[in-house]
């Protein structure tokens, strides 16, 4: 693995990050492709030379690469999480409830970078409802009929309802 290859990889990862994408070996054409061991060595060596490169675990066990120059860890986590939609939704809702003090509109997951279809989203919500480890994920509906999700670990239901109403209706009426 020459320096030229490492540089090419670093540049490639950065280009992908600029476009809002993670880079993994799956992005390369089928042949030629490095074997798993060689790939690991290449990634390690490249990261050592280019410390802006980060790796994040993907649901299939592989790793996705991004450059922190162009992509934040939070965004990378969303991209990496798309392989496990229920977990992604749960994490997003919990993080927003805790640090942003905000419930999350369902529509967020239909847009980029989540890009769930309505059917996928519905299935996802059904799974979350069944899962005993995610009973903190609750919903509230605003006067405009918009559905918001929040985590009861971080937001009381009254608070979540008021915040959802504020975000969905109130803010636009208080320009």
């Amino acid at each position: 693995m020459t320096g030229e290859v490492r540089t090419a990889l670093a540049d490639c990862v950065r280009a992908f990050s600029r476009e809002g994408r993670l880079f993994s070996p799956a992005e390369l054409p089928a042949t030629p492709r490095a074997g798993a061991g060689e790939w690991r060595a290449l990634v390690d060596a490249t990261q050592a030379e280019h410390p802006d490169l980060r790796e994040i675990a993907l649901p299939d066990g592989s790793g996705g690469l991004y450059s922190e120059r162009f992509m934040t860890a939070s965004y990378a986590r969303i991209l990496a999480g798309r392989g496990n939609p229920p977990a992604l939704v749960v994490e997003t809702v919990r993080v927003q409830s805790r640090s942003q003090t905000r419930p999350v509109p369902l529509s967020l997951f239909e847009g980029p970078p989540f890009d769930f279809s309505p059917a996928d989203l519905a299935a996802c919500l059904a799974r979350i409802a069944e899962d005993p480890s995610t009973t903190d994920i609750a919903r509230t509906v605003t006067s405009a009929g918009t559905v918001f999700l929040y985590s009861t670990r971080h937001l009381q239901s009254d608070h979540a309802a008021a915040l959802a109403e504020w975000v969905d209706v109130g803010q636009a009426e208080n320009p």
Partner: protein
Amino acid sequence: MTTPGGWAGKVLRVDLSTGRISTEETADKYRDVLGGTGIGYQVFWDEVPVGTRPFDSANKIVFATGPLAGTGAPCNGRTAVTTLWPTCWPKPLVASGHMGGHFAAELKYAGFDAVIVEGRADKPVWLSITDGQARIRRAEHIWGEGIRRATYAISRDMGPEAAVACIGPAGENQVPMSVIINSVSHSAGGGAVMGSKNLKAIGVHGTGSIRIAGSPEEWEKAIKYHLSLIGANNQHVVPDSPQPWAEFSSTGSRWVAARGRPWGAANPPLDTGPCEPHRLNRIAYRSNSAAYFLGPQAWKYTVRGNGCTGCPIRCHTVLKVPAVAAKYGIPETGQNTCGGLNFGRQFFRKFPDGNRGQTAIEAAMVGMHLADDLGIWNNYQLLQRDFQKFYYEGILKVKLGQQEYGSYDWERYEKGDPSFLFQVLPRIAAKDGELATALGLGTGYTLERWGIPEATWKKDAALGYWKMGHPKHHSNEDSGQCGVIINTQYNRDAQCHSHTNFTRNGLPIEVQRRLAVELWGSAEAVDPAMAYTPMNVHKARMAKWSLLRKELHDSLGLCNWMGPWVASPLRERGYRGDNSIESLLYSLATGDRKTREELDLTAERIFTFHRALTIRGMGTRDMRAQHDTIPDWVFEGDASKAPFSAGTIRMDRDDMRTALDMFYAELGWDRRTGSPTVESYRRLGLEPVARELRRRDLTV
């Protein structure tokens, strides 16, 4: 002494009664109050007798901008319009409106920092201001025309580069709920005062220049620095959806740029995002007021952003909605920002396809077309909320009489048909009928006319009425005690955004709290939204800071809908902005080096001047009891929850008493009355003000 930079140097004075036009040196009288509202308050203090009413010829109307207007300082372009406010109830007092567009810059290039209009012309006139000169011109040919055609006529006279501040039929007819509009969509209240003076418009075109005292290199560096800290509209610094470059995102932020959200009516369409914050060439794509207020459908109708001279934000949205041309006979293109976009749609309780659908957008287009041509004001949307309440509670049926009531197509109204607006708005402008006449007075006078106690309005949380005929404007729904304090201080709705720009900027509460330590002394200055905690001195400091910075921006020609810039989108700065941006730009532009503290002192002087004007105008020093009032709904509106529990914005009376105590203490005002002490007037160089107030027995 070197001529300072920034200021144009002259104030124009036009007496419409005598036709006399004269100029004064800005520095002679107004240096210590900078410009904008500062000049307005000074003129009113010195020259307009107590007891003057808005439509008396003794009333004046002051159009004033500040030393940063017309320069490349980001987010400038603002003109303050100060006058005795026609909708201020029960007794008109001094208040200011603010308009953007190109007027402020052109006035500066023409060589003027302000225009003081006095007296009354005996027939319709308009004022033409060109380089260093002004002329009173006959306006019979445009009197009666809408703002659109009158602007066109004046532009043909003065050339396409003129900025024209114009009233429509509403102002001509002295409808108190009327505005002055320049540059298509930029409005300020006070239209009726111009109408009462028979002044149709002020057209201004300048080819001069503004000197920048600092070197071009220093100035360029300062501007780029400021631009690097700028967020989206209202200085929101976090995008509303996850973006690759962003650590945080927050639904409800005005930073709406994202992939897949295009200026859909640009030709060809333009995608907006992602707008990485270091890419200063993409600042204009970050915000889209139409999408924010009218919903995601507005993206496909968005042509581009628009706004004031020199501002990169473009908080006005130009919309092209082809359907409205055939359906309503109005141009397919229209533009405005928040209040203007909401104008038409807020009249209706609901639309057939929901509140953010196609019909709502059409209502927005019809509303802008009518209101911005007739020149009608909406009192920060209280007009629309009053209208709904009057209708749905059956009050109109009683007050209008059968014949007039039947002349409105209420079925259309209830259905949410935007064409209903053609029945209402032109009649308001023409004072045609009881409904139009009453609504056009402004809420305080409407209630008085119809024998409705103001107290009933003060109990209705959904209405958001505050006091003296005007609504809340970013009060407790936004920023708890800080917002309430701010809303007590003015003689119309408080046009202050310093606090809300911060609380709504999208940063997590921990980050906001970290910044609050530096800004106001403690993390306790800010609460999470709708989870307020009891009052503390740091919240009082935030309220004082908010108000002072509002007056500072209004006097410098900067936009308080964007500033201050104390948070930024930059992670490498810990999302910190710069609390001294105003002092940096002011010092460089003018050559008058003032630290942040010194400039804030000047702002305090201006703010206190407004207080003195209010005290003198009301004839009482007991501001606390008589003026700084808080409506019942703030304390009782949400009976289901106790104050300081999560999920309510309900405030506590004792806590707000403490809040005012602390706020007055921060300003050095008397705790009992909320009146500035003689010592505070002296500290601020307002001894003449103190002397006159003492003569009137209005000091403590």
